[in-house]
């Protein structure tokens, strides 16, 4: 098998563009010249990408923890429930929200590439796109989770969901004990990206760092 773990070159601010960067600029300018896309399309989409981060997913999770009717709608139709909160889906994908319980732990992966719930989490981390996670999440999820420091008891079922170009998943983590009476904002602050991928639980000590 090929090895997908290759280092990126160090990024320096004043470096001359490399071959592939030149290719990107050339393709973009040619397509704009032909009227197939516009410079404004690209600029607008960069703004959209910059507007997406795990903070959006954290809001969704916190709402689901505090509003059981919303939670039901979220589990029935993830995309529609996120749209209720003003989160737009720019990439024509469906979203299935997977609820962790006392007996089931969910994990998401894209074995074929890097499909990910970008509208609600932003872009995936590099490790999600690299071979070890993609290869092993489906065959030995408990070992992979242990590498993230997450030990799932043997009597808890692990379900791994493999994303596609049009179906994306988001994990609804379990609400940690000791958060009774917390506000939605306080709850959102402890929900991390990795918890919504399913590789770690939400804990009361976690900051909103992802």
């Amino acid at each position, binding site marked *: 098998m090929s090895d997908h773990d290759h280092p990126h070159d160090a990024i320096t601010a004043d470096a001359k563009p490399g071959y*592939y960067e*030149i290719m990107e600029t050339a393709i973009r300018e*040619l397509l704009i010249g032909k009227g197939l*896309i516009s410079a404004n399309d690209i600029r607008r989409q*960069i703004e959209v990408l910059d507007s997406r981060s795990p903070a959006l997913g954290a809001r969704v999770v916190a709402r689901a923890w505090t509003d059981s009717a919303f939670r039901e709608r979220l589990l029935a139709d993830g995309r529609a429930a996120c749209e209720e909160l003003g989160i737009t889906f720019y990439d024509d994908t469906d979203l299935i929200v997977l609820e962790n319980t006392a007996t089931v732990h969910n994990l998401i*992966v894209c074995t074929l590439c890097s499909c990910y719930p970008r509208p609600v989490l932003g872009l995936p981390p590099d490790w999600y796109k690299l*071979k070890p996670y993609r*290869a092993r999440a489906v065959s030995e999820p408990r070992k992979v989770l242990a590498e993230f420091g997450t030990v799932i008891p043997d009597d808890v079922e692990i379900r791994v969901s493999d994303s596609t170009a049009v179906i994306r998943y988001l994990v609804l983590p379990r609400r940690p004990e000791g958060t009774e009476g917390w506000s939605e904002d306080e709850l959102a602050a402890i929900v991390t990206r990795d918890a919504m991928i399913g590789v770690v639980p939400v804990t009361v000590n976690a900051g909103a760092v992802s």
Partner: protein
Amino acid sequence: MTADFVSRLPNDLGGAEAGPVARVDHELAPWEKRCHALADVLDFKKIINTEEKRKGVEALGADLIAKLPYYERWIVAFANILFAKGLLTPTELAGKMAEVEARTAAE
């Protein structure tokens, strides 16, 4: 075992042997973010959809996939798909790349 060559295409990694997960990440370089935005715009405009992009990467073959980082794979795949769809020609791209290179070298 030559059967290994056809039993799995390069993107089909599920269940393969692999080492431990290193929790690596990096902030996208500006051109990588532009490349991502280009991919999204090509999808919205129904020029190249996500599955065509994935297949385009796969069509690069295991050797190139192993050697090129993520967005480098995407942009090469886009070039090939655009050639195949008759939306760009290799000559146009080569000419434009030479122009962009000369322009940025002069900056």
